[in-house]
Every structure is written in structure tokens, then in C-alpha cells.
């Protein structure tokens, strides 16, 4: 029988509407609760989120989901009484269920001399450091942690830069526009084809598209009509019920450090 876990919304409520929709689709896994202990707390990633996460862990949450975390000082999470707590990050692109099969394809195709293109389209006015953080999370998930980041250009309309991930050159960019749906687009071209994934913004269950091209043709991976949000909650349920661990906070901290170059600009 599936463990039926209580869910408690902690903090500023910024995660509310999306969470409600997702939880409505996981009625055997979760139920609303006014009390935390042993259950899952959800924290919105707006300013001060590390403290709210730490507070939720201290209140007895078995796990905490942070939605769309902005760059922040994570030292509150390193306090001895909360360090090692189960924290899962619901990141804009990397939480999408296509990422697991996509990463297999990208890592297989990533040989010396090739380049990963990672381009995101986001709405006008988005915080560019937060956008970059989401993008770095995606690059890490698809290929490897990104480092040696150079920002070539930034403006109110976005940014473009270069990095290295697992020894592969990365061309990354963010373009701010309200004209077309938000999405992330990653492509790695090979000598005779390539890997291409397009990830929608998760506001709906529109599936991501993963295409692997070689001389035999293009193989489209099965479409998964599930948002990254729902996939995150299923992941949390699995970790909580199996006693698994997550490296999300360590990964996030490293990406925040990399993304700080944009915040400083």
C-alpha cells in the first residue's frame, strides 16, 4: 500500500497554487495536513527560503520541497540540527521527467570537441540570476556540473555565456520574451546527428520532447505528460518511503556559486 504522507505548506505560500494542483493528482501519496511531523513541507523559493526550510526541518518535516529556489546563502541549512535533512529542489527545467532519459543520451553523445547548446526562453522581467541558476541545474542534470562560466553579454533582455561541463564546451543563453511560451532547449550535435531536448515550463503537463538523431533516423522518446512539479513530488515520496538521500542542496550550492558571476555583474 502506498504510504500516504501529510503535506504542510510552510513559509510564504508562494508554492501554493502549483502544489495544490499537483497534489490533487497524487491523492494516494499525499494528503493535506496542518501538522508537519514525518510529512512533507513545501517551501517557496523566494527570499529567505533557506531559513524557512530549516524551520520546517526543525518542526519535524520528514522532507522539504523547495520550489523555484532563488540564489541564496544556504548556511542556515548547514546548522548541525538540520544538516542532512531531506531537501528536494523543484527546479524549473531539471525536474522534468524527460531529464533522466535525456541525460543518458547527452552523456553518450558528449565526446571531446562537441558543444552543448542550452538556451532558455523566459518571461520579461525575470530575475536573470535565478534564470541562470535554473539553467545550471539543467546542464548539471543533462551532462555535468557547469564551471568556468564566462558571461559574454547581459542586458535586461537576457544573457549569453560559455562554460565547461564535464569537459564539454557549453553555449548558454537566456532570452526574455513574452511572445512565445517559456521553455528550455538543449542540443548537442554529433558527427552524424545529435541529441535535442525541448522542455516546457511546467505550467501544464505539456510533455518535453527528446529526439536522438543518427544515420538511421530520429528517435523520439516516449512523451511523458507530467510536469516537473509532479515528478518532484513523486521523487520525494520515493525517497521518503525508501529512506533515500538527495544531493539537491549540495548541487544547488555549487550552482549558486557558479551563478554568482551574473549576480555580481
Amino acid at each position, binding site marked *: 500500500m502506498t504510504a500516504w504522507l501529510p503535506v504542510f505548506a510552510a513559509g510564504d505560500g508562494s508554492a501554493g497554487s502549483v502544489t495544490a494542483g499537483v497534489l490533487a493528482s497524487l491523492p494516494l501519496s499525499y494528503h493535506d495536513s496542518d501538522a508537519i511531523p514525518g510529512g512533507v513541507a513545501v517551501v517557496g523559493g523566494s527570499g529567505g527560503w533557506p531559513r524557512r526550510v530549516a524551520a520546517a526541518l526543525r518542526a519535524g518535516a520528514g522532507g522539504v520541497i523547495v520550489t523555484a529556489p532563488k540564489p541564496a546563502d544556504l548556511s542556515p541549512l548547514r546548522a548541525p540540527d538540520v544538516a542532512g535533512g531531506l531537501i528536494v529542489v523543484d527546479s524549473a527545467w531539471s525536474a522534468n521527467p524527460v531529464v533522466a532519459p535525456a541525460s543518458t543520451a547527452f552523456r553518450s553523445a558528449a565526446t571531446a570537441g562537441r558543444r552543448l547548446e542550452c538556451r532558455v526562453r523566459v518571461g*520579461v522581467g525575470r530575475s536573470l540570476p535565478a534564470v541562470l541558476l535554473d539553467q545550471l541545474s539543467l546542464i548539471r542534470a543533462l551532462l555535468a556540473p557547469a564551471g568556468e562560466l564566462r558571461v559574454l553579454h547581459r542586458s535586461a533582455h537576457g544573457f549569453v555565456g560559455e562554460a565547461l561541463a564535464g569537459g564539454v564546451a557549453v553555449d548558454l543563453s537566456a532570452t526574455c520574451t513574452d511572445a512565445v511560451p517559456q521553455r528550455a532547449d538543449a542540443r548537442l550535435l554529433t558527427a552524424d546527428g545529435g541529441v535535442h531536448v525541448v522542455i516546457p515550463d511546467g505550467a501544464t503537463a505539456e510533455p518535453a520532447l527528446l529526439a536522438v538523431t543518427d544515420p538511421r533516423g530520429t528517435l523520439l522518446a516516449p512523451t511523458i505528460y507530467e510536469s516537473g512539479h509532479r515528478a518532484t513530488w513523486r521523487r520525494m515520496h520515493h525517497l521518503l518511503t525508501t529512506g533515500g538521500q538527495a544531493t539537491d542542496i549540495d548541487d544547488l550550492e555549487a550552482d549558486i556559486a557558479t551563478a554568482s558571476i551574473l549576480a555580481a555583474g
Partner: protein
Amino acid sequence: MLNGKIGVGFAGAGPVTQAIHLPTLARLAAMFEVVHVSDVVADVATAVASRVGATPSTSIGALLDDPRVEVVAVCSPHAFHAAQVIATCRAGKKAVLCEKPLAMSGPEATEIAAVSAETGMPIIVGAMHMFDPGWLAASEHWGDLPAASHTIRSSVVLPPNARFEDLATELPARSGLTAPDLGNVEGRARMVHAGVMGLAIHDLPLVRSLLPRFDDLRVLSAHVLRPFGYQIVCTAGGKLVELHATMTATWRPEWTLEAFGDDRALRIDFTPSYVHAGSATAAISTGGRTRTFGPAGHNGYEGEWLRLGAIVRGEQAAPDLAALIDDLTFAIAVADEAALLVRSAHGAEVPA
């Protein structure tokens, strides 16, 4: 005109003439007749001319002396374009179609401009996307996109030319191309430069039409993509421009041009070079709606010859030569600066 058709002479009978222009003119046989084919290699001139019942020759002089030639198509190696366009102007022909690039330097472009102005010779540059119905529809319906756009991106993913050449025609032979030595900086710089002047140049006029100015061009990054290609990031006219191209053994070509503004976006998907696979498809998105244009039944190769025919018949004006010169100046600037950056291997963060 001969039997109501415009007589065409080709200066250069290589793959571009054979795979692009002869099949294109065959689709426009009611309008054009190829009457003269000139190439420095006599056997090539004879072989290609014989396919269309044209007169062969091995010199531009013989071509220009042929009174049946009304329009000259300059399809020779790039280094000869300027001189041959100028010679055509002075020979009193009705028009010239010059394959890109129009010239290889600013001084050459200036000389062309002067001679064209002096002689009144209409010039079309064979940047086929400028005449593609998809592009033309986009430019007619894009509203304030040129002013409102802030990001422009061109991406070209193609197999080597031979694949589409073989689908567009049958070439009796190919000249062996020497692969550039990418193991040294100079080889890489030359590849980037050649990539811009040979491939990016197809879309740089389109990019430039979206820029308010380009005299402030700044190339921020330039990389060689192996086995052939480039990744270039630059700014001009207050906008960010990315130029990407790679030629691999892929069977899946992709050729796109995108422009983004805060509330308006354009995406154009072009069909591959050489083959007659119809026009590009253009999508303009704004206010939650997307309008799609195309594909039309003909591509930019036909488009440029249709325009040339209309010019010769006096039905349409020639393209503004100043604009063509600006297109070339912009391309040379991008090529030169990108190559310089590769040589210096220098890049720096540029704040807003």
C-alpha cells in the same frame, strides 16, 4: 530578348551554376534562356554549355562580347566577383546576378558601387533567403519587429554540400577541397572567416535588416566547430546576435533564423540549399497568437531570378545598391573581427 526570353550568360560553371542556377532556370524556361557558359576550364564550359544548348567559352571577355547575353550570372570563385561584376557593368548588359559575396573587401565594394551608379546597371546578389517567399512574408507582416527585437539568432545545420548537390543535379566531377588545418590558430581563423563569408553570408543581410545600425559591431566570442562551422556571438545596434553553423554528416538539416522582442517573436525555418524544396516557413508570434506563412511553391533561388526578370522587364526596381554594399560591409566586418578574435583567443565579459 530571344523569343521573349532573357538571354543569360554564366561566368563560372562550377557546382553552384550546375546544381543551383541551371535547374532553377529550367523551372523558369518560359522567362530565361541560357545562351553562354564560360569557365576557365574548357572541358567544364563545354560540358555544361552542351546541356543547355549554350555557347561555351573560357573567358569573361567572350561572354560579355556575346550580344545574346543580356544578363550575366557571376558564379566564379569569390576573388573574381568584383572584377567580373564591374566588367559586366561596363559591357552594357541589362543586369547582373552575382553570387555572394559581392566582393571581398570594402574598396572592391566601393568600386562596384561607383561603376554601377555610372552605368545604371542593376545588381542582384544571390543571397537567396532575401528572395525567399517565407522571408518576404515575414518582413511584410512583422510589424515593429525590427525596432522591437533585442535578440537575433541564426543557426545552420547542414550536411556537406555534396549531398544536396547530388540531389539537385549530377556533377561529372568535383574538385578536391583541401581540408583546413585546424591544429593551428591561423587555420582556425581562416575557417571562421570562410564560414562567415561562405555560409553566414546567406543570412547576414536578413540579420542586418533587423539592426538599426552595425557600425558599433562588437564580436564577443568566436569558435570553430569541427569539422566545419562556427559559433559567433556579437552585438550590433544594441542587439545581441548569435551566428551558429555546423556541417556534419547529419541527415537532418536545420536552418533557422529567430528574432525576439519583449512581445513579438519571429522564427523562420528555411529549406536546405541547392534543392528545390519550396520556400521557408515563417512564424510571427505576438499576443498569444502565432501566424504562419508558407511554405510557398518556390524558394529563394527562383525568387532571385524572378526578381531579376522583373527588373529587366522594367516591372520592378533593382535592389538598393547602398543596401547591398552595407550587407557586404557587415559581413566582412563580422568575418574579420571573428577571425581576429580566434587569432587572439581573447574574450571578456561585457556588462550591459
